[in-house]
């Protein structure tokens, strides 16, 4: 047990500090401008609370979205000191400490059209989420209550990781591929899509491949989505895992085919030379190597009926497995 005195000191650390909050304002009528507010906060003050206090005590005209204040509803995505963050999951004084400045800037998320102040238009985000058919299509007998789903605890855990997306839009707001490629579904939709692609209870696997595979090859593997996601969904991981399913697709698009060939040539070069280090240098991306691993994983654990068709390939992959020391 810690000494009583120290305990008291810890709990009593409630010193307030004055901060300056610079908010990027926008309204249809007035255009865009920066506005500054000063207020006192303590070590516990969340940025949503900062905004609420500014709104109720200083300037009611500020618009922003916030609901749960506990990082589960995905309402409060914005840029804080330039970083895409959930305001409720950000403590004001943490930002002051990280940036060593008592001025904090708050802006709307990038990419999405701004409606008012920190409120952006997420229609395109939602459209893309709905494109991946974000729901389970279970067996008829299950729907009619004739049989029960069983799900292995380890499958539940794997799927749950990717199901935790709260549709906040932060990943999409910072994704470079979304900006240049209208065909790319974006990180959040891919996470959602993969969550159902990988669900053993789902019945529309082929259709999901058609929706997801081509788009999955349009990601640049920059890992921005991985960095900004407040729920550790790792969208880029789901894209890698989705790419590994390219094998199982009957009619591939050009993008998917090129991508797949690229990986295959690397696979065969590894297989021929056996020089893993050299291959690593050549690839220079951790991401592609991971894809190979994922492919092996998909062959082993993926839908068995598809894996069987790929009989001959598995032999080659076995070799790589050895080379890669699995």
């Amino acid at each position, binding site marked *: 047990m810690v000494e009583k005195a120290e305990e008291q000191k810890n709990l009593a650390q409630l010193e307030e500090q004055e901060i300056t909050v610079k908010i990027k304002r926008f309204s249809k*009528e007035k255009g865009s401008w920066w506005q500054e507010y000063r207020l006192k906060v303590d070590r516990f003050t969340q940025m949503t609370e900062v905004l609420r206090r500014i709104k109720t005590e200083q300037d009611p005209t500020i618009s922003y979205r916030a609901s749960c204040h506990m990082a589960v509803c995905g309402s409060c995505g914005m840029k804080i000191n330039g970083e895409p963050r959930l305001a409720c999951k950000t403590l004001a004084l943490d930002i002051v400490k990280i940036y060593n400045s008592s001025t904090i800037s708050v802006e709307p998320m990038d990419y999405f059209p701004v409606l008012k102040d920190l409120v952006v238009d997420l229609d395109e985000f939602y459209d893309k989420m709905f494109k991946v058919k974000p729901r389970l299509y279970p067996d008829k007998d299950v729907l009619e209550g004739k049989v029960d789903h069983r799900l292995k605890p380890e499958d539940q855990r794997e799927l749950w990781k990717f199901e935790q997306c709260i549709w906040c839009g932060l990943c999409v707001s910072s994704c470079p591929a979304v900006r240049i490629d209208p065909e790319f579904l974006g990180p959040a939709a891919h996470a959602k899509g993969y969550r159902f692609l990988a669900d053993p209870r789902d019945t529309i696997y082929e259709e999901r491949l058609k929706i997801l595979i081509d788009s999955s090859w349009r990601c640049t593997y920059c890992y921005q989505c991985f960095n900004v996601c407040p729920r550790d969904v790792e969208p880029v991981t789901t894209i890698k895992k989705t790419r590994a399913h390219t094998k199982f697709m009957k009619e591939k698009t050009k993008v998917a085919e090129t991508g797949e060939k690229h990986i295959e040539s690397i696979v065969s070069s590894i297989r021929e030379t056996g020089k893993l280090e050299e291959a690593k240098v050549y690839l220079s991306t951790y991401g592609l190597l991971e894809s190979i691993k994922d492919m092996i994983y998909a062959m082993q654990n993926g839908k068995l009926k598809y894996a069987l068709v790929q009989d001959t390939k598995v032999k080659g992959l076995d070799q790589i497995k050895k080379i890669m020391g699995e």
Partner: protein
Amino acid sequence: MEKLSYDAIVVGGGLAGLMAAHQIASAGFKVAVISKVFPTRSHSSSAEGGIAAYMPGNSDPNDDPDFMSYDTIKGGDYLVDQDAAQLLSEKSGEIVKIMESWGTLFNRQPDGRVAVRYFGGQTYPRTRFVGDKTGMALLHALFQRVSGIGNVDFYNEWFSLDLVTDNKRVVGVVAMEMKSLNPVLFKARAVVMATGGMGMLYSHSTNAYINTGDGYAIALRAGASLKDPEFVQFHPTALYPSDILISEAARGEGGILINNKGERFMKRYAPKKMDLAPRDIASRSIITEIREGRGFPGGYVGLDLRHLGEEYIKERLALAYEAAKTFSGVDATKEPIPVRPAQHYYMGGIDVDITGKNPDIIGLFAAGEAACVSVHGANRLGSNSLLETLVYGRETGNSVVSFLRDYSGSTSDMEKEAEKVVEEIYRFTKSETGVHYGEVLNKLRDIMWEKVGIFRDEKNMSEGLTEIMKLRDMVPSMYVTDKSSVYNTEFFNALELRNMLDLAVVIGTTALNRKESRGAHFRTDYPERDDQNWLKHTIAYSKGKTVEITYKPVKMTKWKPEARVY
């Protein structure tokens, strides 16, 4: 004003609203779901612990629906309608199975079946869960499901203003698109209010910022009654100062409450149960410590886990540990978690029977936290609210379907009434001076917390009520400084405040009226439960500036009231 026509309108895109909409749409009727936030941002997403269900073949062999009903009735201090509690228990397994089949990723047992755990007040373990994010998992699964069926149109980020009725019959709802401030009259034969709770009435609440009790006020203004509006649940351990819920598990697993002297104060209030005392007792004890100067600066006590050891804390109390770290910057292995009580749940609500039907207005239904079916009575049991939203969301949806099948609706136009609704609120934007909403809001929340909160008595409540009435009188002179016509949240906050005030008056009046202590309603001047005089539901109507109170008997089927001791 623009008009749209549907068979039914569901106001609210949380669990209750979505489930009702699913049933109505599946029967072939056209439904509009109106929600002031995108549905997955509804408060249902915040629920952590789980959903209670008796699942035949996947429950304790000694358990049965009757035990579950009994737990619910006793937990609710006998103000529970027993038929409602029985229906809840009987349908619980089925609803969890349905949600599972729609893709909810419930935690599993090694053999692949849905897992189960124990929650306070349960004779046998019944709580089904998805990690510590059960509400989020259910809400996403349900929204995704409903977004894929026909017959449902979603009006997301649309704010419902008022019901339009014609001679006690529902004609529709006036709602406004928040993006454009465009008002629309949604005409329908049936309206389901599934607008959730009202935590924002209190300065400390675990609820989402959007829980402003709009639905209760809308119903009151339309002439419908609220049942048991004086019953507000407080949770003893909300994280200071964000009021994020720290689950009861933290105390269940051995956490202790300490004051600023480092003293384990629960020994003075509950010598036997100590830190495991029920929610209401723990809440009152903490408040007493703080009031008597033994809290920490800012007004909180410590929830100390340190003696449990780092490994145990991180494994068994991961959620509490994470929440403290993320939202308060406190490492629970090194210092106590700062906690204080906060408003948590509203037992009162729009009066409905077990089919979700309101007795005052034809075509008006309600479900979820917005409704009072009387399954929670004077005090809700953990895990029962998610269950209620789904079971009674479904029952209500089904009864709307039968209602629609043999009711052709009112033929009157009611356009003038709809215009009046909008004109009244435009006053806020038109005037250039007056009272600003932020001022009134913060005052109201403090009054409710101080005077109609955890401890109640005649003197404080009368004072509080007088002050609330004064604040409500300020509504006509309220004005909105922001004149923007796009996503003007100041305007909607002012409308929410108007709703909060209409509800606060009713809570204050009925709490003052109930001269006993029962469940969450604790009066220092009447500290005992009084079954002789008060084993009855309060029914409250808003009549102009006053509140009219009548009573309804509690429905008893099998269980006689006994003392609520644990």
